[in-house]
Every structure is written in structure tokens, then in C-alpha cells.
């Protein structure tokens, strides 16, 4: 089917001199091989999942509003924490980055489309089915998976409900989607750059995604392997993670985190690229230390394979293994630090303005760095014994994932919305969205540091009364942050329905890059003839 459509496409293109011809209605979206359409679908899908995962977080925060069990059962609480994590990681953050990659990478390197457009269609369209399978497990007896998004064995094998099978299957589909997306990014970047666009001229967003794609290809098969081992341990009598059969439950954690730690960087490296595009644009000054940014990204990616066991310090590793992983983890602070210093130096003696993308980027730099600081603290093994599995960790990874990854995605959306939609976003609403998000996100996550240090374990549905005050504050912040995101929905819908001032080809004075050389909204087909760089 898609063959026919794209064939007609090329025929049309030849005849009609590159006019924006496309099928209409549902078929346009089902059969599209256009990187912009696919990018749009990825972005809307991820936003939908962001709201779904977010409402689960609100359920968690509602139960934790005060001590005692009021609203939900502990077993359902565990389903909420599990599905919140899975959906936010695999459904919201990762697809959002793939959507941005789809939209922006071809336009940034002067390519007409992604290199493998049909695979591109396929890698998006299997995702909704993956999540349909995952979410349908709520209707099984025993409900959805309740073993945490990290699905540690044997809680996920011997002691889990049958929804595990759906969980495993759905993970496989998501993994396939990610691998296909990653292959597409790599092939596109290696083969389809415009003449003169050599590697060291590529925008950092392209560079960071290039490296991210290699990480994805390296670790997604590990995830596929480990979920399969969980499946066979549960249903086919193997004992990979069962000591009684000669296995080891800690092996699960080694395998999972060998995937899981690079996964963390998969969710932050593209953010670095986004912020490296936005800060120079609004500081009206070239990015400081472009080459060192590239090398820092590559070294972070390399180190990400050598630090996985810092998630496992309390599992009883040999001392020398603990030391090795502690040193390697601390080392990551060096290239990450270089990036932050470079961003600040880019601002230094620039001529800054503070449009919404810049506001989100500035908030990113500060709040991501706070997440980095708690990361250094967590790297110190003897102290990690105290932090491990407490709300301190929850605070840490929400600072890097929400005020890090999610804020950068918001920044990217505001930065490129005029290019995507052809209209300027509603400035007042966007500022309102920023300030509401900034304030509420800190009410939400900052106090978690305190309650974690004071000794509150994570993933508990009820807590001792000395944690009550802070949990109340956190819950209020959670609801404020959650509802603030509806402002963004309003902004995005207004742009989608072209309600707003028409955007010029280059709405930002200091913006650099090929994407600003095409009109706004970007035509359906761009760079049919490669630009000269």
C-alpha cells in the first residue's frame, strides 16, 4: 500500500515541479513516508503519552498527599509507579526526541527526507500498538505490571502476574521501533548531508542525535535480551535469575543497567544538542567550544557503558568493582561540566533576549546542573548506601529527566513551532506556561531531596508521619506542574490550527542553520535540490 502511495508521490513530484501534493485524511497519516508528517505524529504521540504518564503521577501524588492509605490499594500504587516510569521513558521522552530528529535532522543537514522513509513510517506506527498492549494489561486479572519500570527479577518473574507477558511483548515492539529509528538517523546523517556539510559543520543537535543513535543500537538489543530472559524464566522454566536453578538475581540488574545507563544518556544527549542550538541563537553569539562539545558528547557516550553498576552499589559487589564504578561515574562529571561551562561562556558577553525557548533553555542549564550535582553525590559509593532507593534518587533523576530532558523538549518545541506550523506561538500563554512550570516543578521536586535525605524510601504507598509536611508540598507542586502542561496543549493546538501571527522564514534574529533558509511553514518537501553549504 505504502509503495503505491510513495510511487504516486514521486510521479507527482516530477510532474508538478515539487508542489505539496499529498493524500488527504487518515490515509495521509497512515501511509506517509514524509519525515515532517512522521515527526509531527511522533511529537503528538509523545505529548499524549506525557499526559497519560502524568496522570498516573498525579494518582501517586494524590495517595501520598497524607500518611495512611486513602485512595488506592498498595498493589495498584505499584502499578502506577511502574507504568508512570515505563510510559514517561519509552512513550514520552524517547518518541519526542525521535519526532524532533525526524523533523529537524533532514532540514539541518540539507537532505530531502530521512534515508529510509518507509521504515520511518513503520517505526512510528508500531509504537501506538506497543502502548496499547502495555496499557491493556490494566484490564487483566491482577492488573498491570507492578514491579517498577526496572522490573527486577525475581519480582518480575516468579512473583509477577501474567501481565508480564504483555509487558515483555510491548517492550520488544518499542525496542524495534527505537532501533529502526536509530538506524534511520545514522544512515541519513552519513549519506544525505548536503555538499560541504562535513561532520564538523553539522549542528550539535545532529551530532548529539548521531551519537545517541549509536547508543540506541548498542543497548536496545540488551533490553530485548533481558526481557526475553524474564519471559523464559517466568514461563519456560529457565533459571537465569533464579539461584535455585543456578542463576543469579543480580545478573538481571547487571544486564538491565547495561541497557539502563546508556538509556539515561539517550534521553539527555539530544537535549544538549537542542540547548546548544537555542542559547547561541538568543545570545546572538556563536556557540563556545563547538569541537569540545562534540568530543564531550562522545566521551559521555563512551563512559556511559562503564558506569552501569553505580545503580547497584548495595547489591553486594566486590569492593574493587564498587571502586571502579565509583571512579568512572565521577569521571562523567568532567565532560558534562565542560558542556555547562561552554553554555555559560556562550552567554558571556552576548546580547541576550529572553523568548520562551531561551527561558526554557536557561532553566535547563541551571536545573539540569542541580541534577548533575546530586548525581556526583550519588556517585560516592559509601554515601550512596544512604541515598540509594530513597526520594533523594527520585529528586535526582526527575531533575535530569523533567527539568532536563522535558524542559529541553519544550524549548525545542517553542523554538521550531514557527517553522513547523507557519505561525508564531501565543507569546503570553507560552510565558505563562514557562513560569508556571518553572515554579511548580521546583515545588514538586526540590523538597524530595530533603525527604529522601531524611530517610523516606522510594516506591512506598504510605510513609511515616515525619515525612508528612514535605509530601504535602510535593503533591501540591505535582498537581500545579501537571495542570500547567495543559497551557502547552493550548499553545500547540493554536499553532496546529494556524491561529497566530504568520511566522517569517527566520523568526529568531540570531538563529543559525539551514532550517531557517526555507519558508515557514516548511514546505512538504524541502531541499529537493541540495543547498550549498
Amino acid at each position: 500500500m505504502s509503495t503505491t502511495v510513495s510511487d504516486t508521490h514521486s510521479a507527482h513530484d516530477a510532474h508538478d515541479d515539487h508542489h505539496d501534493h499529498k493524500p488527504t485524511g487518515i490515509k495521509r497519516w497512515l501511509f506517509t513516508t514524509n519525515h515532517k508528517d512522521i515527526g509531527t505524529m511522533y511529537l503528538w504521540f509523545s505529548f499524549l503519552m506525557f499526559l497519560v504518564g502524568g496522570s498516573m503521577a498525579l494518582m501517586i501524588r494524590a495517595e501520598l498527599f497524607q500518611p495512611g492509605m486513602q485512595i488506592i490499594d498498595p498493589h495498584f500504587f505499584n502499578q502506577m509507579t511502574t507504568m508512570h516510569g515505563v510510559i514517561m521513558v519509552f512513550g514520552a521522552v524517547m518518541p519526542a526526541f525521535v519526532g524532533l530528529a525526524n523533523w529537524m535532522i533532514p532540514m539541518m543537514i540539507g537532505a530531502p527526507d530521512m534515508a529510509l522513509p518507509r521504515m520511518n513510517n513503520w517505526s512510528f506506527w508500531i509504537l501506538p500498538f506497543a502502548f496499547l498492549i502495555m496499557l491493556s494489561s490494566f484490564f487483566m486479572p491482577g492488573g498491570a505490571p507492578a514491579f517498577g519500570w526496572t522490573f527486577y527479577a525475581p519480582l518480575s518473574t516468579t512473583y509477577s502476574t501474567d501481565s508480564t507477558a504483555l509487558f515483555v511483548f510491548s517492550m520488544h515492539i518499542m525496542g524495534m521501533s527505537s532501533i529502526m529509528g536509530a538506524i534511520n538517523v545514522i544512515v541519513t546523517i552519513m549519506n544525505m548531508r548536503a555538499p560541504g556539510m562535513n561532520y564538523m559543520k553539522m549542528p550539535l543537535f545532529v551530532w548529539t542525535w548521531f551519537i545517541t543513535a549509536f547508543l540506541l543500537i548498542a543497548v536496545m538489543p540488551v533490553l530485548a535480551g533481558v526481557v526475553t530472559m524474564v519471559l523464559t524464566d517466568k514461563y519456560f522454566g529457565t533459571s537465569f535469575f533464579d539461584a535455585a536453578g543456578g542463576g543469579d538475581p543480580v545478573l538481571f540488574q547487571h544486564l538491565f543497567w547495561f541497557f539502563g545507563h546508556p538509556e539515561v544518556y539517550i534521553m539527555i544527549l539530544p537535549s544538549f544538542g537542542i540547548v546548544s542550538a537555542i542559547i547561541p541563537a538568543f545570545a546572538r553569539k556563536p556557540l563556545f567550544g563547538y569541537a569540545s562539545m562534540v568530543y564531550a558528547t562522545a566521551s559521555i557516550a563512551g563512559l556511559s557503558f562503564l558506569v552501569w553498576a553505580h545503580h547497584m552499589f548495595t547489591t553486594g559487589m566486590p569492593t574493587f568493582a564498587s571502586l571502579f564504578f565509583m571512579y568512572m561515574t565521577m569521571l562523567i562529571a568532567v565532560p558534562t561540566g565542560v558542556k555547562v561551562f561552554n553554555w555559560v561562556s556562550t552567554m558571556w558577553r552576548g546580547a541576550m533576549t529572553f523568548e520562551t525557548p531561551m527561558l526554557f533553555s536557561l532553566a535547563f542549564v541551571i536545573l539540569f546542573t542541580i541534577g548533575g550535582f546530586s548525581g556526583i553525590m550519588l556517585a560516592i559509593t559509601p554515601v550512596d548506601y544512604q541515598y540509594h532507593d530513597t526520594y533523594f534518587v527520585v529528586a535526582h533523576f526527575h531533575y535530569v529527566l523533567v527539568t532536563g530532558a522535558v524542559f529541553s523538549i519544550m524549548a525545542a518545541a517553542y523554538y521550531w513551532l514557527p517553522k513547523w506550523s507557519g505561525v508564531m506561538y501565543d507569546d503570553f500563554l507560552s510565558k505563562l506556561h514557562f513560569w508556571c512550570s518553572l515554579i511548580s516543578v521546583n515545588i514538586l521536586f526540590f523538597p524530595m531531596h530533603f525527604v529522601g535525605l531524611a530517610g523516606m524510601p522510594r516506591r512506598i504507598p504510605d510513609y511515616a508521619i515525619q515525612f508528612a509536611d514535605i509530601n504535602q508540598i510535593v503533591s501540591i507542586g505535582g498537581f500545579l506542574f501537571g495542570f500547567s502542561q495543559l497551557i502547552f496543549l493550548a499553545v500547540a493546538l493554536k499553532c496546529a490550527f494556524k491561529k497566530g501571527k504568520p511566522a517569517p522564514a527566520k523568526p529568531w534574529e540570531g538563529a543559525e542553520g539551514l532550517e531557517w533558509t526555507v519558508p515557514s511553514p516548511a514546505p512538504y518537501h524541502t531541499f529537493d535540490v541540495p543547498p550549498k553549504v
Partner: protein
Amino acid sequence: MKVRLTSLLIGLVAMFTSAIASAGQGSQLNLTRGVTDISQTVYSLHMLVFYICVAIGVIVFGAMFISIYRHRKSRGVEPAKFHDNLRVEIAWTVIPFLILIGMAVPATITLLKMDDTSDSDMSVLITGSQWRWHYSYLDYDVEYLSNLATPRDQIYGRLPQTENYLLEVDRPLVVPVGQKIRFLITSDDVIHSWWVPEFAVKKDANPGYINEAWTRIDEPGIYRGQCAELCGRDHGFMPIVVIAKEPAEFEAWIQGEEQRLADARAEEERLLSMEMSKDELMSMGERVYLSQCAACHQPNGQGIPGVFPGLAGVGVSIGDQTAHIDVVVNGAAGTAMQSFRNNLSMRELAAVITYERNAWGNNTGDLVQAADIHQFIQGNQ
């Protein structure tokens, strides 16, 4: 715009200083200092790294805020053109590296101390299971289970919550101060994690493997902790309480315990021949059921569909009596149903089985006596 940006600045600075201030006071917003040498060292290490981070934060964010304030277009500045400086780049690669070495050295020394479990004075085997802890003193003939003591009525809001809500157990671990206590930590089912913040001890309990940790407590007192690794439905309801006593008091306590347990065993032997009435069995059974079984099978015996099987009107509870005894005594391999052979006395086992066979309309009329359990276990061996 300007006003709002300044207020953001002030807000963030205020947040940071309040963090520092509260950290300095050692209030409950910060890590506990604890009551062991190790925990105090861990605390100072935590504060050291924290202050280094704050210092770096002040420099980096300070530069950023100066830049945001001074280098803004609205002040009519012209942007500079520089975009590279090798010396600066080398400096901010090397200096952080040196700072990290400064953190790594004390961290390494502390870790080596924490991992050295040799030359201990006594050992306690800690076994986690869903959702309770079992303590076994390897140098004495004493072992027992430790369950959450907070009543369900407090959890479900029918009674006001008391001071140690969710942090209280029926039988705490008792240890002497001033001695090096080695903990051997393992699990019967899923992974748990034994954590007492005031000792800076947190170690995973892995099924089939034994982990080691140690502590030497300086001050007598009651110390509370919780399971730290997600271990299923009632992960939030398996606290840890440790009472540290002076060595002489501990010695007296443990000898009393040994005696009490020996007496109980003798008594059990003696009572094997004694029949309990249905009322006795049912009331003891209900007590045991609520403390040991209700977390999974629910107080009404309905279980949780798809997760934990119900007992009311279905399954072994209304079926073959020997099969019922078997599953309670030996557990069911490959499921969350654990063996209660060592955790309950024969009288308690008999009572809880009787209760399950007659409660919630099961009404089988079967009475199981301690002697039946005894006979089953003998036949089993």
C-alpha cells in the same frame, strides 16, 4: 520581564541558601549523622561533596546570572565574537578532575572500612521475606520474625496515627553497643534491602545469596529503618527496628530469650497431645491469620484476583485437609506462598489452618490440632 527574571534569581538563591541552612542545622531535612563511626564519616563525606557542589554552583550560576543581567540586548550591548579558547577549555577540564580526586580519596578510604567485615564479635542472619524480617542470632539459639506492628485501623484512617506510625514492629532486633556486629543478609523470595539510616547500613537481601555488612553502635537506643528495595505489594510496610543495649543488658536479654524459646518448645511438645477447642483454635487462628496471611489473602479471604488467590469458598481451604497443611507448612514452590514451618508454632499452624477452613463461610467443620501438624511434619521428613 526584568522584574520576573530578578525574582527568579532571588527565588533560586533563596532556595539554595535555605538548603544550605537546613543542612547546617542537621535537622530532619538532611542526612542523619547516625550513631556509628562509619555513619558519622559518611555524613561528613556527604557534607563535603555537598559544599563542593554548592561552591561550584555559586560560581557557575553566578557567572550565568551576571551574564543574564549585564549581557542582555535591552541594555544595548553588542555581542562579542569569540567562540573558542583552548587554555580555558583545558583549565575547566583539569580543575574538575582534580576536585574529583579530592572527593575520591576519602570516599575510597571509607568504602574500604565499610566493606571490611572481618573480626566481628557476633553475627546475625537477617532474612527478608514478603513482608517481614527474620532475625537469627548465629552465636545463640535465638531466632524470630519481626512484623509491622502498626494496626490496620491506623493505616486505613479508622484510628489516629501514632508517633512511630509504620516504623514499629512486634519484635525488634536487639544488639549490644560497642561490639562489631556482622549482618548476614539474604532473602526467601524477592529482593529486599535492609536499611537502618543511623548505622549507614543498607544491603540488599538477594534470594539464594548472602550479603555481608557490619556495624558498631556507639549509643544505646532505638533505631528505625525500612526495607529499601521494591519487594511487592507491602514494600512500604516492612519496617526495621533495632534496639541497642549495653552489653550486660544484652547478655541478660539474650539468655532470657534462649530460655523462653526452649521453654516454648518444651511446652509445645507437651501440648501436642492436648486438644484445643474450636473457639480457641478460631480466635488464635484469626490473630495469626491477620498478622501473617492477610497482607496477601486479605482479611476477608478474597485475595487479589490474578495476584494472590482467595481462600473463601475456593481452593485448598475447602478441599483436602492434608494438601492444605502441606501448602501452609511447606509453601508453594514458584509462588509468593512461603513456608511457615519455622515461623509459626505447631499450635499456631493448627489454629490458622482451622481458621481458614471455617471462616468466611467455608464451614468445613474440620478442626486441625497441633498433633496433626506434628504428624504431618514427621511423615514429611
